[in-house]
């Protein structure tokens, strides 16, 4: 496995680690047996994501994809954030080893779940 410099940067200096108190949405995906768990928190104001944080149990790629996802969504509308695909994440990280692509899928799913959670509370 050879990670890109971007992945290594996000792994060594992950952005937005932690939890948000009273978040507007939480997305939780994965399980310990699979080796990856991601928990994403978002704060939403007037349909715009103003803050995002994560907690992740997993490999280097899992941590890096979570980290970059929180960066990507900040300042975006809910609709824009929802459209961030795993491919966009891979691109933003200058690539991921083939066997680590599922991490980008997890990050996409976690964000979708967080948005879903936000919506379910705001109907």
């Amino acid at each position, binding site marked *: *496995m050879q*990670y890109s410099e971007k992945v290594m940067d996000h*792994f*060594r200096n*992950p952005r937005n*680690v932690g939890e948000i108190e009273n978040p507007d949405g939480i997305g*939780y995906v994965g*399980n*310990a*047996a*699979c*080796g*990856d*768990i*991601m*928990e994403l928190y978002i704060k939403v104001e007037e349909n715009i994501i103003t803050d995002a944080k*994560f*907690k*992740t*149990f*997993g*490999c*280097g790629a*899992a*941590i890096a994809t979570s980290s970059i996802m929180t960066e990507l969504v900040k300042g975006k509308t809910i609709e824009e954030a929802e459209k961030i695909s795993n491919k966009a994440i891979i691109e933003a990280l200058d690539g991921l*080893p083939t*066997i680590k692509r*599922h991490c980008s899928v997890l990050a996409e799913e976690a964000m979708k779940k967080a948005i879903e959670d936000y919506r379910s509370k705001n109907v």
Partner: protein
Amino acid sequence: MEVYLDNNATSPISEKVAEAIKDSFAYYANPSSVHSLGIRVRNFMDDARNKVALALGVSKEEIIFTSGGTESDNLAILGSLKKTSKKHIVTSLVEHHAVLNLFKQLEKEGYEVTYLPVDKDGIVDLDSLSDCLRPDTALVSIMYANNETGAIQPIEKAVQIVKNMSEKIIFHTDAVQAFGKLPLSLRSIPIDMASVSAHKINGPKGVGALYVRKGLKIMPLFRGGHHEYGMRPGTENIMGIAGFGAASDEAVENLSSSIEKYTFLKKRLWEGIYKTIPRVLLNGGLDKTLPNTLNVSFTNIEGESIIIMLDLEGIAVSSGSACTSGSLESSHVLSAMGVPAAAAQGSIRFSFGRYNTEEEVDYVLEKLPPIVSRLRAMSPLEK
């Protein structure tokens, strides 16, 4: 500081091995040739064969050189199964993939396989072994010591159980991790075959051997010339074999001092970890394992991220076996031992070798606790 604690994955070539390899360049002819240059190479190779044999406590006519531990395991198992029509075979749940994946393949091809369970320390259950043997049991393959946890199996007892049932059941052991780390005297046990590999004991990668007890004939894995008593065709890896001989020699010579050193370093590392890091598990225990192997679970964090963090500090370790690193499955060994997933995922194997020092252990003990803290601070399981 560069600290290599991944010697169970592979180990650096020693100076004597490097010398033996360089010396081998002068033996350039083909050992099968009629001319005297060929005869010289044949004798040179037999010298090395003798050294490997001595390290195993057997004689040189019982040593077949192969391309490594994986091939030795496959040759032993497939080579003896081709000689019988019996269809029941036995192994353990904690074998290396070279054995385990072969058994899975054989299962697909119609063999009935018993996978023996292990206890919480990874020791194979001998009652299950006694119970599973049948008149149509062809072969039992149990490893001598485990690559991930270092767990030392009760091979002598296992062989006795099998041979009491029937002399004809073939007993093979994957001794790749035990070789050069434990005193071995295979002649004194009625074992049929044992696999070893040079690169785990400061020899070169890509060369191994299979001990085949005198009188036992197995079929080759593939066809060609009449090399290695007809059991393994192909021009011999002279350079690798020379290095393997030197490595075996050295391993025997240094055995008691290395056992002493490894035992000390391992205890120091474990005690340091235990004192400074909460919620750690020792997989396999301290005493029933290879003196050079320490397998620790750091609960609630994942192995690869620990490895990379340590790597950034110059420390090389692994999680699980080197072959499966990078794959998505978690350790089949820890899961057979009943280690829960969140702990198994965070397991790290520290494996000592010839060149490790006390200072290196202390360096690891300095770097490791903050890494575990940082990763735990990110973990959603830490609440």
